């Protein structure tokens, strides 16, 4: 080794900080995603094209129920934990940029259409809190006070709506509220009406027009048309499941991902082991599909041709795939116990699937249904790709 070469090595050694990302690793963030390791309170950063686990970062607190949204530039993920933690993860530096504990018990969040506000839905104390997406400084605290005695409701189904607005549902009060941040100063809060008993989650369609809350306590769903000059809550599918004995529900369904598929909504029944097909214009039921158990997620492939369904305990080892034009189950397989969450590649050619009890994420081709890869992740739950940054309501 020449002296010159030795000196060069020494310089590189001392100048490059340990673990730093060097120029050879320059990368875009549009291909990245995060996977929640629910038992460890850590989050793994993945590169989706190459099915690669880049790094797992700890220190997120209680992630037993967790979700994520992304900054507009897809550099940061905002992780919402069960313990009220809101953590901003830098996907490039692979470290926590900022973390706050903003409540005692939380269920999820949303980011505004302009990317400047992050809102969190809280169970305790019930309400939503809104933060600056850069600094995580508090912008607004909106307690969900209802009734005459000042009680606070748990909030669920918090989504972003176009025009710097957030829509959310009060579980205990059975009401839908909207917080409008389009003007400077305090947000304008409007109450959009009663939902019915125990609204447990809600969704907004990808066009930002329809907000739909699922009800646990009674039949039917609550719907708000946000294109209406005066948005208000209406009941839809009131006769759904009438007179039928409800089956026990061992895990609440999630409404996110119940996308519009081929001109109809495909919704999981609650206490009924079936999916409902609902006409997207008239909101009348057009059909149903009997499935393996209580559906938890019924997620549409981005092209809307297929819906993939997973199930509540004790049938959570199975996935079924429904063909939308025919409403027939075209594929069923058992990835293993506790298949908890699915995320499609942005254009739907692959789906990533968390299998909690085998500590792995499995990746499938959505046309051939062949398994393409397996990545080891400890107790995986939610999978979120950065492409969500550019989709409404995710």
């Amino acid at each position, binding site marked *: 080794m020449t002296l010159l070469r030795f000196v060069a090595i020494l310089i590189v050694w001392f100048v490059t900080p340990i673990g730093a990302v060097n120029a050879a690793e320059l990368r875009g963030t549009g291909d990245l995603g995060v996977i929640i390791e629910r038992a460890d309170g850590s989050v793994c950063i993945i590169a989706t094209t190459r099915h690669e686990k880049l790094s797992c970062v700890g220190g997120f607190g209680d992630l037993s*129920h967790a979700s994520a949204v992304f900054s507009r530039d897809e550099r940061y993920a905002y992780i919402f934990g069960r313990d009220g933690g809101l953590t901003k993860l830098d996907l490039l530096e692979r470290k926590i940029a900022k973390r706050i504990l903003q409540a005692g*018990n939380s269920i999820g969040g949303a980011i505004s259409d302009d990317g400047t506000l992050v809102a969190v839905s809280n*169970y305790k104390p019930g309400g939503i809190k809104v933060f600056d997406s850069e600094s995580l400084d508090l912008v607004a605290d909106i307690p969900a006070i209802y009734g005459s005695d000042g009680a606070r409701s748990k909030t*669920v189904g918090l989504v972003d709506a176009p025009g710097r607005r957030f829509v959310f549902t009060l579980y205990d009060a059975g009401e839908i509220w909207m917080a409008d941040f389009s003007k400077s100063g305090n947000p304008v809060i409007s109450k959009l009406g009663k939902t019915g008993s125990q609204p447990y989650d809600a969704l907004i369609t990808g066009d930002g027009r329809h907000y739909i809350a699922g009800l646990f306590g009674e039949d039917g769903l609550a719907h708000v048309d946000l294109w209406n000059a005066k948005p208000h809550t209406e009941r839809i599918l009131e006769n759904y499941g009438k007179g039928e004995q409800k089956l026990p529900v061992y895990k609440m369904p999630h409404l996110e991902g119940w996308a519009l598929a081929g001109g109809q909504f495909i919704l999981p029944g609650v206490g009924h082991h079936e999916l409902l097909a609902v006409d997207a214009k008239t909101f009348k039921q057009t059909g149903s599909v009997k499935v393996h158990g209580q559906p938890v997620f019924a997620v549409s492939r981005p092209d809307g041709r297929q819906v993939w369904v997973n199930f509540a305990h004790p049938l959570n080892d199975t996935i079924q795939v429904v063909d939308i034009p025919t409403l027939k189950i075209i594929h069923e397989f058992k990835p293993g116990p506790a298949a908890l969450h699915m995320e499609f590649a942005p254009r739907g050619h692959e789906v990533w699937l968390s299998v909690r009890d085998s500590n792995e994420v499995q990746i499938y081709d959505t046309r051939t249904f062949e398994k393409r890869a397996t990545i080891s992740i400890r107790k995986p739950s939610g999978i979120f790709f950065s492409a969500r940054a550019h989709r409404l309501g995710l």
Partner: protein
Amino acid sequence: MKLHLPFWLSCALALAVSCAALAARAEGVADARQNELNYLVRQDCGSCHGMTLKGGLGKPLIPATFDGVEPEAIAEVILDGISGTPMPPWRGLLSEADALWIAENLKAGTIK
């Protein structure tokens, strides 16, 4: 190879085994099943009550919640659910001994 034990040692061993069996019956639930139940409480009850059992859509399952409530009453809620709420009946998935074991351990705060 055959193992020849003295008569007294065989008796002592047999006694020890039967004592262990009795202890297990008193506990009602075998060790392997206890592991499964711990896991079920954290992961599946945890869907609504939080994996740390500090609450979610459902109430916290911490000892303070069960102050003054008999384990039998808790076991009944586990087995039959609470009508009009999302708490489902677990009968069919859990035996009465399972439910009682969960109830006692929730009350004592000893779910692992």
